[in-house]
């Protein structure tokens, strides 16, 4: 019995070593001698159908900023977050969830529209991460029209879009602040999984 266990482990080890040798020693050596060794396991049809193409990144020299501070605090809150609602619907029905009718609703319409998945929701406010390419897809989606494009290198701006004389109970109302720079966390393998699931 023990001998059979040892044999099984040895078999798995030998197979793993063979695979390791092929993928890390043999293929690079063959590639160096210009042999076509791409996609040795999967056919082109399988790769095309299973793994969709990555969205190409075209930098425009600009980046989007949501003109609403993610660190804001309200003394009054009109409504509470309702799961499944959209910013467009809330804007149409109630104008805003908060005391300020110009503030970000934070239900993620822009997040869903972003092909680079560069928008995250933080404290009920959309925040653009470093993955933003400045394509501007989110601008037209935002019902509050508070997403604007800035040139790269801009560090400060007024993270507030109030255009009239209303005085909401927002702690960051009308303040000039550093533009929040967020690094979106995530492993490449999960990004690939999401691409496959969202196909």
């Amino acid at each position, binding site marked *: *019995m023990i001998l*059979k*266990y040892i*044999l*099984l482990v040895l*078999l*798995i080890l030998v*197979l*793993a070593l*063979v*695979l390791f040798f*092929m993928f890390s020693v*043999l293929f690079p050596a*063959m590639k160096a001698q210009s*042999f*076509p*060794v791409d*996609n*040795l*396991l*999967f*056919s*082109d*049809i*399988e790769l095309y*159908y299973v793994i969709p193409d990555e969205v190409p990144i075209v930098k425009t020299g600009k980046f989007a900023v949501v003109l609403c501070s993610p660190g804001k605090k309200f003394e009054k809150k009109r409504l509470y977050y309702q799961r499944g609602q959209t910013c467009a619907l809330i804007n149409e029905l109630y104008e805003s969830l908060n005391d300020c009718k110009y503030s970000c609703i934070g239900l993620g319409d822009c997040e869903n529209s972003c092909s680079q998945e560069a928008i995250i929701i933080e404290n009920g406010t959309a925040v653009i991460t470093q993955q933003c390419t400045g394509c501007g897809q989110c601008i037209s989606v935002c019902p509050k029209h508070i997403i604007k494009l800035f040139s790269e290198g801009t560090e400060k701006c007024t993270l507030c879009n109030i255009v009239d004389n209303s005085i909401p109970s927002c702690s960051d109302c009308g303040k000039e602040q550093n533009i929040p720079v967020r690094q979106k966390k995530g492993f490449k393998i999960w990004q690939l999984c999401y691409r496959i699931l969202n196909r």
Partner: protein
Amino acid sequence: MINIFLYYILYASVVLFYGIGINRTTVISRTITSTLALNIIKSLFSIISSTVLTWLVIEDLLVPLNLTELYPFIALLIFISLTVFIEILIRITTEINTSEFAISYLTILLSLNESSTLIDAIIIPLCCIASFVLILPVLYAVRMRIDSTRLRNDKTKKKSLIMISLAIIILITAICDITWLNPGVLP
């Protein structure tokens, strides 16, 4: 042996009954090229050798150790080692891309699941590949028939028509009485 052959070629065809490679057949049937023969030979060799090796490992190691749940993993390791090795040989000698994973691996699993002896483990994958090859001319004919009766630029319903044709073929094979294939019925 003839009952296994008939069963896996016609009534339980790997494409029609199990759906393995149904997408691939519809794609390949568009243009049947000369490299298809090489593809089939390579698949045949890698599938049969992987099935036999895995079957032996299962019989001699996994069954005595009560670890039969590990068989897909062992099959995967053996299959990848063999198929990549054969693929390298083909690439070096002919520079033709014959790589393929899903159909071969699923056929191996099917053969391992449904074989009771080593001979079965050789015949079943053989029949599976034969059924895969046999469906190609049929689908090619269906495709040509659809093309000849419809407008050249109207591609919208082509896939649907091919799938409906496949469904009809499946129905035709499924309505046959196959109880006589059971060895116990004949005596």
